[in-house]
């Protein structure tokens, strides 16, 4: 597809920085009503007028790719369409309340939270849900803390969390942050959990096994019941990373597979916008026995009235208040818009799209049958170079070089939001880039705002603010 991204600027830079269009310095001691020893001496900030700001940010937005611009098939990221109406319902002024209002005065807010908890519990096959974690990684941190509190309540001291080598980096980091030693589980020959390796890894030290299902190459862990038994027999808990839940909506539920704790990535599965990196939300679902450990406060309904309460053995808090409210409203609206049939169809179409796209690709795809995403390999080409070249064909490339056990991986998740024509264009971008010469790949991209960016120097000589640029000059 033909595509040229907007490119404002001159020979030295693209859009000027706010600081380059004018700043002013205020003498704060002079201007403030406080004694001067309590105030800063001066303050220098940009001084753009509203019309100038409007143009600045509009231009910057035009130099940015998004779901509404075109295909965005990042594997494990689920960049699906974000319905417009969810923005409107989240902006309701009646919902704009301070987090320390008394319960009786925010019944509507609590009703939404209770409703979303219920929806998520149904979808995950879980008994209780907290909406407090503000992102997927925060959900993992919460879930592992819940597991820890559970073991401690049984005076069962455990020191290890098992994580497959192919797992998201956050799994390792979250388990480590909660104080556990991380035991890495090598991937099996077929791309799934190797039961022998798991047998060897599981012990009385195992607090939990963290798994994604379908896994990071889109394969369903067919031995999940056996895996759950092995972990449970050793006294451990099974944790579900919800990053790939979009594949299973209405067709399979983590709770039914034997998972004890899970997090949902509502910014993936439930279509809340990623906002350039966040905010998201990472609600955590648990089975009954673990509900008393969830973060406080929780919401419940009693005779049509909603109230907050602190679970008996709560782990405490993982966010200053109740998490990312606006994101939670959008997730509720999306789930309710789709309902049972829509959710099931969303999964079906996401899996159909991944399979159809894969069928059009002239790439080796080592692991199948995959679901909503697949890992193609760029073979003897550099996946990162192929990705840069894809930018010139008017699409965003997939996740590259991950998971690591697939050589030169291109992890691709088209989501349900693309139609056949769009997938054909995407396939053409993949195939054209692969067919292009090494020189063409090295020279890419040329149709994006910026050409290839020198990331090594950026890391070697960090310049993290406009002050650092001034120092340089």
């Amino acid at each position, binding site marked *: 597809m033909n595509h040229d991204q907007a490119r404002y600027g001159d020979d030295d830079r693209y859009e000027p920085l706010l600081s380059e269009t004018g700043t002013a310095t205020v003498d704060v001691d002079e201007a403030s009503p406080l004694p001067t020893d309590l105030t800063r001496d001066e303050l220098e900030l940009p001084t753009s007028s509203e019309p100038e700001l409007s143009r600045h940010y509009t231009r910057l937005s035009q130099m940015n790719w998004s779901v509404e611009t075109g295909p965005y098939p990042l594997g494990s990221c689920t960049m699906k369409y974000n319905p417009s109406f969810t923005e409107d319902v989240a902006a309701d002024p009646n919902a704009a309340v301070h987090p320390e209002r008394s319960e009786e005065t925010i019944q509507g807010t609590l009703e939404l939270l209770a409703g979303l908890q219920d929806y998520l519990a149904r979808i995950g096959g879980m008994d209780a849900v907290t909406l407090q974690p503000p992102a997927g990684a*925060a959900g993992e941190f919460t879930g592992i803390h819940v597991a820890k509190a559970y073991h401690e309540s049984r005076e069962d001291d455990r020191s290890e969390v098992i994580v497959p080598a192919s797992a998201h980096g956050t799994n390792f980091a979250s388990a480590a942050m909660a104080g556990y030693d991380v035991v890495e589980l090598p991937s099996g020959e077929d791309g799934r959990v190797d039961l022998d390796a798991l047998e060897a890894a599981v012990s009385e030290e195992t607090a939990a096994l963290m798994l994604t299902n379908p896994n990071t190459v889109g394969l369903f862990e067919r031995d999940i019941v056996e895996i759950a038994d092995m972990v449970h027999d050793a006294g451990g808990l099974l944790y579900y990373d919800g990053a790939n839940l979009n594949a299973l909506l209405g067709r399979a539920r983590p709770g039914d597979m034997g998972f004890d704790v899970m997090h949902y990535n509502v910014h993936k599965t439930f279509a809340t916008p990623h906002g350039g990196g966040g905010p998201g939300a990472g609600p955590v679902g648990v089975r009954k026995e673990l509900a008393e450990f969830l973060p406080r406060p929780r919401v419940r309904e009693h005779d049509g009235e909603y109230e907050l309460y602190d679970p008996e053995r709560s782990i405490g808090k993982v966010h200053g208040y109740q998490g990312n409210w606006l994101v939670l409203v959008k997730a509720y609206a999306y789930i309710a818009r789709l309902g049972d049939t829509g959710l099931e169809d969303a999964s079906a179409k996401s899996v159909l799209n991944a399979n159809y796209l894969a069928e059009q690709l002239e790439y080796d795809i080592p692991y199948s049958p995959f679901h909503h995403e697949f890992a193609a390999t760029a073979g003897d080409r550099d996946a990162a170079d192929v990705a840069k070249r894809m930018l010139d064909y008017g699409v965003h490339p997939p996740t590259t070089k991950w998971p690591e056990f697939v050589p030169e991986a291109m992890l691709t998740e088209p989501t349900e939001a693309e139609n056949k024509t769009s997938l054909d264009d995407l396939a053409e971008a993949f195939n054209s880039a692969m067919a292009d010469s090494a020189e063409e790949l090295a020279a890419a991209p040329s149709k994006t705002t910026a050409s290839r960016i020198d990331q090594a120097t950026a890391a070697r000589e960090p310049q993290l603010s406009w002050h650092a640029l001034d120092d340089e000059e």
Partner: protein
Amino acid sequence: MTDAGRHERADGTPYAPHTSEETAAMLDAVGADSEAELFDVPDDVRFDGNLGIEPRSERELRAELSSMFARNDDLTEFLGRDHHSHYVPSVVDDLSQRAEFLTSYTQYQPEIAQGFLQVLFEYQSLIAELTGLPVANCSMYDAATGLGEAARLAGRVRSVSGTRVLVPERLHENKRAVLDNYVDGTDLEVATYPMDDGNVDVDALSDLADQGTALVYVENPTVRGTIEERLADVGAITDEAGALFCLGTDTVALGLLEEPESVGADIVVGEADALGMPTAYGMGLGLFATRESFLRQVPGRLVGASEDTSGRRTYTLTLQTREQHIRKERATSNICTNQAWVALRTAMHLAWLGPDGLVDLGSQCVQEATSLANELNDIQGVRAPVHDRHHFREFVVRTDQPAPAIAEDLEASGHAVHVVDEHLLQVCVTDVNAAETDALVDAFEEAI
């Protein structure tokens, strides 16, 4: 379901564009008879039941949520503590809602994401300007999780040998609870130091801070709205103890109060969302800035400047070897998804205010609090402010009559205030509710 349009199907998501012909052609291409055939899910874990979630039309849902939220009482909020509201100009809503910003992902392909990367670079620069510290990340979830990360950073830094995190005895209980979880799993422990008439008891802190201390956390303004007067002394005490000094604050206070770097702060955390975010039930934006020497220990994403092959200045995520997707269990933090879009809004709001606007807004926070406290103090049986300090936005009020009953009466007349204890209330005033202070004073008189 009665909305008009081609996507109104009896079953199926309205957000997948497939016509039935396309679906059939695609199934044919992959050699399957149905979508169900594509699922490799064993029978014993297949879900055959109903979730029981009734699909609704867009129109129905807007009505449903509108009436749900109408169940919230319409109160004028004089609430603050760890969450403060200021007027957010329309231009921030308008520009931040542009789909190119809102529906974009983390900038892993910088060449096609220069717009958002520049926004984040500008945000980092604005925070660096406000704090005086050169390294600001592009967000934590909120002030509480930012404090948790600051404590963990202190625990990792080689120059710090202590393990005790000293926090004020008066700290928002939620923030303390989050901090406790962040240090659980490290060898850090949290202890408190006393306050003196609302502010840090500097002499007591001096006795407590020793080589066993890793971090001293001080807030300015404090959770009761008082403005600290001896921050430079805290900086010196902390240095002496070989610990780090972490200052908690917010983006409005930073425009007016002492610059953190100038009092020796090593880390600044707090509510960046005081600007740019409307009141949203506590959804925040965690500020995080620190010194150059701790660069490799910073949690979260950083945007740096670089060049492209044309020689033009560009921006890219940088120093990613600190992060979980590269460093796994040895990462500085598990944070991945952050609050980037809120950072965009905060930067916009800061730029819109400019230096005069920000200083004016901060000044208003001082003046409004002072005059409202004076007016309440004139009421028989009420003393305000309780602390003999300067105040920013909020202050504590002593009432002869039971405070919870007064708060209840105020609520009945449409005003929300915070109950501190049996005879203390806390009242917060900003530009958002300043026009309602007369009504609050009247309601107070009624309630007494």
